């Protein structure tokens, strides 16, 4: 995903002279060629997220298109008010691209985990929130949106085996609609083998496909805090919903992302058991 990030953004920098990239002191080596090629439009802005987001808003008021990239909690949580006021309220455009997802930095502990990013960013009206599950999906989502409005792209080290469209039915069934968000898809497909359910893949979680036709039983498998998408899934429907996501507790053990997936019940086997039990 990170290699694709460098490739896609470097290409956009080349194509669109309004684009300015701000790195929060990460990814600097990866973007070394871009630094050389676009010295006035690529910055290692430093480790000061609040002012970086404010500065990005100032760039946007002058017709530039800012992209800010750093680790998820330092965008979504530390600079939340700047995103809300400086961008959302003022109607300015820019893209905020995080890495780390929920707990890609598993062993670094809770300071670097961010399963709450989507939930808090959904409080900003008009912000488009995208959770690509494959590098190619990041490429297409970013190209489609970077010059339109306020965007959050949540990059994960986890990737599905193949890219899909941002809202796509993967298989059809009758008992439930299982919505797989971003990098959960491969596990959801495995979990739903031989189950009579529809599997719907989704990368753009805000705005969410309100017109979509779900079954009465809706399961949301989300790679962030469980329940984040429950309201969106149920809105205007008389359905019931099961949320399978990151439990709402601090994950104070270390290890790998796979270890934390097991800890959170986000393995294919655990997802399957919860869906079967609920149905």
């Amino acid at each position, binding site marked *: 995903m990170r290699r694709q990030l460098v490739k896609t953004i470097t290409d956009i920098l080349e194509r669109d002279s309004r684009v*300015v990239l701000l790195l929060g002191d990460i990814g600097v080596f990866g973007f070394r060629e871009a630094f050389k090629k676009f010295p*006035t*439009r690529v910055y290692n*802005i*430093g480790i*000061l997220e*609040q*002012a*970086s*987001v*404010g*500065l*990005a*808003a*100032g*760039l*946007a*008021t*002058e*017709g*530039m298109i*800012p992209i800010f990239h750093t680790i998820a909690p330092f965008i979504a949580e530390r600079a939340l*008010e*700047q995103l809300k*006021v*400086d961008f959302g*309220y*003022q*109607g300015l455009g820019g893209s905020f691209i995080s890495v780390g997802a929920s707990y890609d930095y598993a062993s670094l502990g809770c300071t670097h985990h961010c399963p709450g990013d989507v939930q808090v960013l959904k409080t900003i009206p008009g912000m488009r929130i995208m959770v690509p599950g494959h590098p190619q999906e990041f490429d297409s989502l970013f190209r489609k949106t970077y010059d339109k409005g306020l965007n959050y792209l949540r990059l994960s080290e986890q990737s599905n085996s193949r890219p899909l469209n941002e809202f796509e039915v993967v298989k059809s069934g009758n008992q439930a609609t299982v919505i797989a968000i971003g990098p959960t898809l491969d596990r959801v497909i495995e979990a739903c083998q031989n189950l009579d359910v529809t599997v719907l893949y989704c990368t753009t979680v805000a705005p969410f496909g309100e017109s979509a036709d779900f079954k009465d039983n809706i399961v949301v498998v989300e790679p962030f805090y469980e329940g984040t998408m429950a309201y969106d899934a149920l809105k205007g429907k008389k359905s019931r919903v099961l949320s399978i996501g990151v439990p709402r507790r601090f994950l104070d053990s270390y290890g790998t992302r796979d270890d934390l997936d097991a800890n959170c019940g986000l393995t294919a086997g655990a997802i399957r058991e919860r869906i079967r039990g609920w149905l």
Partner: protein
Amino acid sequence: MLQDLKRQIVLAAHGAGEGHIASAFSVLDIVWVLYDKVLKHDPARPEWEDRDRFVLSKGHASLALYAVLAAKGFFDPKLLETFAKPSSILGGHPDRNKVPGVEASTGSLGHGLPAAVGKALARKIQQKPGRIFCLVGDGECNEGSIWEACLLAAHHKLANLCLIVDYNHSTDRALSLEGLALKFQAFGFDTTYISGHNPRDIEIALQHQHLKKPTAVIAETTKGYGCQRMENNPEWHHRIPNAKELEEILAELT
């Protein structure tokens, strides 16, 4: 002129039952000199590309900005009477999407300066003229984002940025800013210290531009300046005069 603007500010606040009058009086001389003597602007074309920009980071002093913008012709002064009413474009804090001449929607302290730094950087990248002025309060200088923005402005040699501090000492009761000018110097600003109620001093300080460094003008001010009962009286930070007080204040401002 300034007395007239002060009367308009008091009347607008009284009519709305809302407004930070003392904060507006603290910055009014500075904002007036900016628009009257320093800024390149065109009220008929608020979006004129080559204008200078002014960001009122301490958005709660909005009444001073509104009164000056109206006096300069950005909008009809009659609109001041609608201040804070449901369908007014003039709210308690300024909104760039509603008010002609307002460059940033502010209110949350510590937001305007980073945005002004972004504007200054954009103009530098675009190799375009014009200066960016930003007025912050001394209480606002408690915010970490102010100092983050200062680091960025100095590092990127944003000589087109001029920061003005409305130093009315309202934050002294909370947090000392002792040596404020030295702090900005240490952060890489070309710093001057002036009286924020002396029009000539204000003009000279704001006209000055360093070749490489951003400028900081520490303006020593009095909160509620020109109205005896409000001067340095915390009670009047967000208070609206009653009918009797209004009459007395208007008499004092003639």
